[in-house]
C-alpha cells in the first residue's frame, strides 16, 4: 500500500510538470491505474463477492481505458501546434502541489490523529487540490479535463478510505457521472476546436457580450 502511495504522489507531481497533451493523458491513465489498484487492494482485503472487485474493475475500464482513450483520440485530432506546447506556470503548479502535500499531512495529523491510512488521506487531499490547481493554471481545455479527473480520483480515493467502501449504487452513480461529464467535455472541446481552431479556453472570452 505504501508503495502505491509513493507511486501516486510521484505521478501527481509528474502531472504538474507535463505540458504536452498526450503525455499528460498517459500520466492520467497511470494515476487511475494506481487508484484502481488501491481500490482492488482495499476491496479484496476487506471482503469478497461482487462489491469487492466490481469498483476496481470499473475504475480500470472507465478511468484507465475509456476516458484516456477518448481524450487521446481527441488530442490526435487536434493538430494545432500552439496547443501542444504550453509555456506557463509549470514551476508554480509544482510548488503548489508541494504545499498541498504538506497541508494534507498537517490536516490529517490535526483532524484524524493516529489513523492507519495517514499517507493515503494526505495523498487524496494532494490530488484534490492539485486537480483544482491544474484546472485553474492550465489554459488548454484537455489539460483542464485532466485536472478534473485528478480531482475526481482524489475524491474517490478519500471516500474509499474514510467510508471503507461506499454502497455499490453510489459508486456506480459516481462512475456514470464522471463518464457523462467526460463525454460532454470531449464533445464540447471538439466543438470548440472546430469553431475556434484551438482549444485554448482564453479565446472563449470573445463570446462575452
Amino acid at each position, binding site marked *: 500500500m505504501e508503495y502505491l502511495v509513493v507511486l501516486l504522489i510521484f505521478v501527481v507531481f509528474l502531472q504538474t510538470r507535463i505540458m504536452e497533451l498526450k503525455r499528460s493523458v498517459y500520466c492520467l491513465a497511470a494515476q487511475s491505474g494506481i487508484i484502481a489498484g488501491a481500490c482492488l487492494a482495499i476491496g479484496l482485503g476487506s471482503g469478497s463477492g461482487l462489491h469487492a472487485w466490481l469498483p476496481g474493475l470499473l475504475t480500470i475500464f472507465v478511468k484507465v481505458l475509456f476516458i484516456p482513450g477518448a481524450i487521446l483520440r481527441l488530442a490526435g485530432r487536434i493538430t494545432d501546434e500552439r496547443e501542444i506546447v504550453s509555456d506557463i506556470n509549470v514551476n508554480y503548479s509544482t510548488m503548489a502541489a508541494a504545499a498541498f502535500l504538506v497541508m494534507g499531512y498537517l490536516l490529517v495529523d490535526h483532524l484524524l490523529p493516529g489513523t492507519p491510512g495517514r499517507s493515503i488521506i494526505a495523498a487524496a487531499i494532494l490530488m484534490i*487540490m492539485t486537480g483544482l*490547481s491544474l484546472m*485553474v493554471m492550465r489554459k488548454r481545455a484537455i489539460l*483542464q479535463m485532466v485536472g478534473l479527473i485528478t480531482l475526481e480520483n482524489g475524491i474517490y480515493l478519500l471516500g474509499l478510505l474514510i467510508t471503507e467502501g461506499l454502497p455499490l449504487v453510489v459508486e456506480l452513480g459516481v462512475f456514470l457521472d464522471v463518464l457523462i461529464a467526460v463525454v460532454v467535455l470531449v464533445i464540447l472541446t471538439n466543438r470548440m476546436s472546430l469553431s475556434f481552431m484551438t482549444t485554448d*479556453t482564453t479565446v472563449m472570452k470573445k463570446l*462575452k457580450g
Partner: protein
Amino acid sequence: MDFLFLALALYALGAMTMLWPKRLEMAAHAAGMLLAAAASGLVFAAAAAYLGSMSGFCLPAGLVLSHFGLLMDAGWGGYNLTADGWSAAFLVITGLAGAIISLYGIDYGKSYRGMGIRALAGLWNLFLLSMVLVLMAGDAFTFILAWEVMALVSFLLVNHESKKKDTVHAAYQYMVMTHLGTAAILVAFYLVGSYSESLLFADLAHNTLEGPLRHVAFGAAFIGFALKSGLMPLHVWLPNAHPAAPSHVSALMSGVMLKVAVYGFGRFVFYFLGMEVFAYGLIVMLVGLFSAFLGVLYASMEKDMKRILAYSSVENMGIIFATFGCGMLLVQTGHGTMAMVAFTAVLVHSFSHSIMKGLLFMSSGAVMHAVGSKNVELMGALAKKMPYTALFTLIGAMSLSSLPFTTGLVGEWMALQSFVTLGWQTGTQEMRLLVIAAFVLLGLTGALALGCFVRLYGVVFLGRRRSSLVLKAHEMPFFMLLGMGLEALLIVVLGIFPMPMVELMESALTGGMLALPMVSADAIVWNGLGILADGTKYSAYSPFMLLMLALIVTAVLALVLEGKGLYVQKDVTWNCGTVPTRRQQYTATGFSKPLRRAFDYILKPRKERTFIKKEHAYFGRTVHYNLFIPDQFTERLYVPVQHLMVRLSAFLHLVQQGSVRLYIGYTMLAMVAVLIWGVM
C-alpha cells in the same frame, strides 16, 4: 365573514379571466370587471356593516354590543386572516373605490382590445384581491406575502403598455423602489417578530422590543410605508408610475394602494410599537408637512395631467401622515380625546382622498381617451364637448382643493382641528412654534392646491381650444360616466352630510385594541356646542348649516338685485384694442409662472431660450422656449447615489472578470481557507 370569503372567491374567479380564450377576450374583460365590482361591493358592505354595528349607527341604541368580535378571523395552516376595526376602515375604502372604479373600467378597458385586455382584467382582480388580503392579514408572513403580490401585480399593471419605452422605465423604477420599501418593512417585522412569541399580529402586539432596536424598527417601518405611500423624498416612483399605468389602474393605485400603506403604518404604530416616544410623532408630522407642501408645489408646475394628479397624491398623503403624526404627539402628551379626532381625520381624509383622487384619475382617463394626449397645454374648451365629465371633474377638483360642501374639507377640517389642539393643549413654547410652522405649511398647501386645481380645470375644460386635438373629443360611454358620477355624487352628499362617514371611521378606532377614549361623532363635526365629553372646547363644522346659510344669503341677494341688471354685463375682453385670439389665453405654464418665480430657490427651473429669428431686440423674434423643472430629490439625492453605486460596482469588476478559471480559483482558495480554518 361569509361575505368576505365570497368576495375573495369572486376576486379569484375574476383573476381566472386571464385564461379565457382569445376570441372571448371582450367577454372576459366584462366578466372580470363585473366580478371585481361585485366582490368589492361585498367587501364594502361587509366592512361598513361591521363598523356600523360598532358605532350603533344602523342599530337601535339598545342593541349596541359592548364587546365586539372581529370582522374576520380565519386561519389555514400558517396563514391567518384577521380583520378588526382598523382593517375594516380600510376595507371600506378599498371596497367602495374598487367597486366604482371597476364599473368605470368596464368601458375604459375596452380601448385595450387586442392589447392584453384579458391580462388587464385578470390582474385587476388579482390586484384588488391582494390589497384586501393585505388588509386582512393576521400574521406577518401573510402580510408580507400579500404585500409582495400587491407590489408585483401593480408592477405588471403599470407595465401594461410595455411597448412604450417610458412605461417600461417607470415600471422598473417602481419595481426597484417598492422592493426597497418591502425590504424596510421586512426589517421592521423581523425586529418586532424576534422579540415576540410568534409572528401572529396578536402576539406581535405584546413584543418586548426595547431601546435603540425599537427606534430602528420604527424607522424601518416608517421608511417602508412612507415609500409605498409616496412621501417625499421617497416619492420618485409615483409621478412616473401613475402616468404610465392605464387610468383606472392609476385611480386604484392612488386611491387605494397608497392608503394600504397608511393601514400598515397604523398597524405598526398602534399595535406593535406604540407612541411613547416623542420623536416618532414629530418625525412623521414633519415629513408629512414637507411632503404636503412640496407635493402641491410640484403639482402646480406639471403639464402632464396625470403627473399633476400624482404629485397631488403626494400632497394628500403628506396631509394624512402629518395628521397621523399630530395624533401621535397628542397621545404622547396625554390628550387621548383629541388624538381621536386626529386619527379619525386620518381615516376620513384617506376615505375622501380615495374617492376624489379616484374620480380625477378617471376623468383624466376620459380626457386622454377623448383627446389622445396627457399634455394639458393641448386641451381647452372640453367643457362644451364633454359636459358631464367636466361637471364631475369640477366636483373632484373642488374637493381636492378642500372647498366647502365637499368631502375634501371634512378631513382637512378635522386635521386642522387636531393641529390647533396640539398647539393649544400641550402648552409648551416649542410645541406652539411647531404648530405655527405647521399651520404656515398647511395653509400654503391649501392655497397652492386651490391654485393647482383651478389651473388644471381651467386649462383643460375652459377657455378656447389650444390644439386641434380637441376637435375630435366626444362624451364618454355610459359606464365611464357612471363611475365618475357615483364618485362625484358621493363627494357632494358626504360633503354636505358627513356624519355617516365620520361615525363609521371613528368606530374603526374604538373597536380594536386601541385604548383611546370614545368621542361622540357629533362632537367631532357638529353638536351645536363645540364641547367634548371632557369639557374641552373647540369649533365645529356643519356643512349642512353652512349650505343653508349660503343658500339664504344667495337667495336674499338675488331677490334684492333681481332685475337691476347689476350682475350681468356682456362685453369683449379688453385686449389693447385687438380681438383676443386662442393663442393669447393663459397657458398652464403661464398660469404657474408667479409661483415658479416665488419658489425659484426650491424648484430651480431650467430654461432654454433659442432665437430662431431675431431682427431686433424687441420685435421680429421667433423664439424656441424650453422649460424643464427637475425633481430636486431626483437630482440631488437619487442621481448622486446612483453614480456612487455605479462607481462602487466598478470595484466588483476586479473580482468578477467572467473567466471560469478565475472562479475555480476562488473555489480553491475558499476550500484551502476552510481546511486551514478547520485545522486551527
